[in-house]
């Protein structure tokens, strides 16, 4: 049981960061980015490149991949989201699916990356190292994942709640017209929001990489579970998104432990459908903050 929960929290950390990234992009641009999961995969591959090609240690690779994610986010916003911003909601959904295709099949074209997953070195010791705790064997990497997730969330919190520019980004998402009337450049804050969101995904892909492997075609499934997390927790609430993502991870692993392997996923998706029907604002968001 404990073993499953730890495993769930580990993959759930990835979902949580995808969900948080989806939330940030949705708030800033009103777009739901179906390609979000691919950025997690590509982030892991950035880290792989740093380790394999530049032979740097894994911590520098983590920083490097996050930075690359940020830049990729700026490019994504400028080349794809901004030109499409005047389209209808349906068209926007389709545009992000187009981006998903480019990333999913594009990364397989890069010589080192290919289409099959690669191992990424663990942050300490050997990848499989683990310790016994309460009858379960827990990989050290899981501890790193929790620690780094907490760190990322703390940085996000500090940035958006404590810094002037972070507040300006929230203000621009909250009321773009009001933001322009106070002199905030909303185009710029939107671009930065998207970049932060993608950087978070790259970070997430790198920290869970040693456990889940990096690369491959799993991005869509991760994106969808990120959605499930965001919807279950509440798309309009950042805390809800993170908690929802972790919850999905736990539920998934528990179901996998209880039922046959293949039954877990459809049950997780049913969770999405049921939440959408019963409580569309999510478990942790109040009705009041929800617009439309």
């Amino acid at each position, binding site marked *: 049981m404990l073993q499953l929960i730890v495993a769930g929290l580990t993959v759930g950390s990835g979902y949580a960061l995808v969900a948080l990234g989806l939330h940030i992009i949705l708030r800033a641009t009103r777009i*739901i980015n179906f390609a979000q999961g691919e950025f997690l995969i590509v982030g892991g591959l950035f880290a792989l490149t740093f380790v394999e090609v530049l032979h740097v240690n894994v911590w520098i690779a983590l920083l490097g991949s996050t930075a690359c994610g940020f830049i990729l986010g700026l490019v994504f916003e400028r080349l794809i989201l901004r030109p499409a911003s005047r389209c209808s909601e349906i068209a926007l959904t389709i545009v992000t699916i187009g981006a998903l295709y480019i990333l999913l099949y594009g990364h397989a074209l890069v010589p080192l990356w290919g289409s099959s997953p690669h191992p990424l070195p663990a942050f300490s010791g050997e990848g499989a190292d683990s310790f016994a705790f309460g009858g379960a064997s827990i990989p050290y990497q899981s501890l790193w994942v929790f620690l780094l997730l907490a760190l990322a969330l703390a940085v996000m919190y500090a940035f958006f709640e404590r810094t002037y520019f972070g507040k300006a980004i929230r203000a621009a998402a909250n009321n773009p017209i009001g933001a322009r009337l106070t002199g905030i450049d909303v185009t710029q804050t939107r671009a930065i929001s998207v970049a932060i969101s993608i950087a978070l995904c790259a970070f997430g892909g790198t920290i869970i990489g040693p456990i889940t492997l990096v690369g491959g075609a799993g991005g869509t499934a991760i994106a969808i579970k990120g959605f499930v997390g965001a919807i279950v927790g509440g798309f309009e609430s950042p805390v809800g998104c993170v908690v929802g993502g972790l919850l999905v991870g736990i539920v998934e692993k528990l179901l996998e432990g209880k039922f046959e392997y293949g039954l877990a996923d459809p049950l997780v998706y049913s969770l999405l*459908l049921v939440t959408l029907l019963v409580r569309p604002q999510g478990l942790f968001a109040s009705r009041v903050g929800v617009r439309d």
Partner: protein
Amino acid sequence: MIARLHADARAIPILLALVGVCGIVASSNATFVQAATYAGIYAIAAIGLSLLLGSVNQISLGQAAFFGIGAYAVAYLTTSANWSYWPALVVGVVLAAFFGVVIGFIALRFHGHYLAMATLAFNLICVGIFHQWKLIGGAVGINNIPFAQLGPIRIAGTPAFWFAWIAAAIVALLSLRLLRGRMGYAFEAIRNDELAAEVTGVPTRRCKIVAFTYAGALAGLSGAMYVAVIGLMAPDIPGVGLTVDLLLMVVLGGMGSVSGAIIGACFIGFLSITGHSFDNWREVAYGVVVIAVVVAAPGGLFGLIRGRARTRATDGAPAPRIESAMAPLVLHSNELPLVVSGVTKRFGGLIAVDAVSFALEYGTLTSLIGPNGAGKTTLFNAMSGIGRVNSGTIRIAGTSVTGWAPHRIARLGVGRTFQNARLFDEMTVLENVVASVLALTRVNERAANDRARETLARLGLEHLSTTYAMHLPFGERRRVELARAIAADPWLLLVDEPAAGLNARERTTLQQDLLAIRGRGVTILLIEHDMKLVMSISDRVMVLQFGKMIADGTAGAIRNDPLVAAAYLGIAS
């Protein structure tokens, strides 16, 4: 027929003939025949999705699931249950259509992104079930599905090509027929403006369910044909990948058009034979092309071929108004046309309309005035069924309409216009009016056309019939909206700020129009800020402030009411 479909109607036979010729010429090329067969099969599902996306503006990321349902039904029945192919096909289509109804009902609760997500979840759940369900082969699927047999012909190879494309042709023509009639007008109206469609009498919820059912049935048919041709079914075939492929076909070809779906299916079908050695490059190119098409050419390939819609058809001289054509309206009821009692509407803590009561007499013109934010439009919305009131009742000709959908109220004989003139922009002026007549009456399309022309003539708008609404100057938009509201002979007309944005000459025309409509016995309730207009044509003026009725009387009495002066001008010191 809707003008947008003319090009579609012309293109379909050409496309089908082209496919037929290719089929005859290249019948010895097995690779071509196979790819073209699948293109035809996918075209069927794509046509359904195209109507859903383009005609009623509903996204579905679950079309592959319907495909899977149709396919598995046939696969199971023709193997384990030993049915012959054709009844199994019917069962597959019906089953898929049934799930279409279910998803249609679910879809009514969602919009845009959330609908995309909900249908995606449906797709994934179905794939999961296909994987797990031992009866239909679980993860392995079903093999050795017999080829379909039509008399002496075994449907495989070249016969399969003809089977696929004859079915696709039938579906294409059937879909075109659907779009040409009453349903097509309703779909087109929904696509342009859902709220305006509802208020002009279109049952938008029912139409959406119909569209989902139709799209589901076609995807099911596509799946049911697919298994018979390929001979096997596996749980991953109807996965998200197929859903996305169908979506790409529709977007590339052009959403909302039947020909576009066929073009898209052929395009992607042929990419799949030429691109085998460049798998990943091909998919990346898909991604790029899809983004480019959505951003740069929202009409897709078909849109590019067809060229831009005729911009401004005729600009003939305005015809004289035909005053005498206005026969007086026969009253059906001796109840008052409108009785509002104690209606209250709150938005959060704000009371927008506060216990308002009034009744209107037949054939009168009453104006509702008041400062911005006084609750006038909110009251109008309550009367036309948009949003629920918190308390109070509204009776129209003796019938309580509390909780009614707008299209039912419209069908009682209530016409309405909006502050910002909500026309169906991508339809012509005539089509705007015809759509409403078809939605509100039982007359056929020809009669509806006559009626619409007559109404336009009455308002002197006939010369604009073939102009697209989006190309109309603002003043004309308002008058066309008025024509749309009165075309089906309502006896209660709610008009929201018709004079805003009109110049002096247009205001005079509007005044004549309103008086002529009242002259027929239509009861009119008017929201207006132009006091000259209000004071000169109203039989009665009601004043709303902060949601409360503060004055009610003749124009002269209202003008000299100190309370009204204070509401409008503030208190003089």
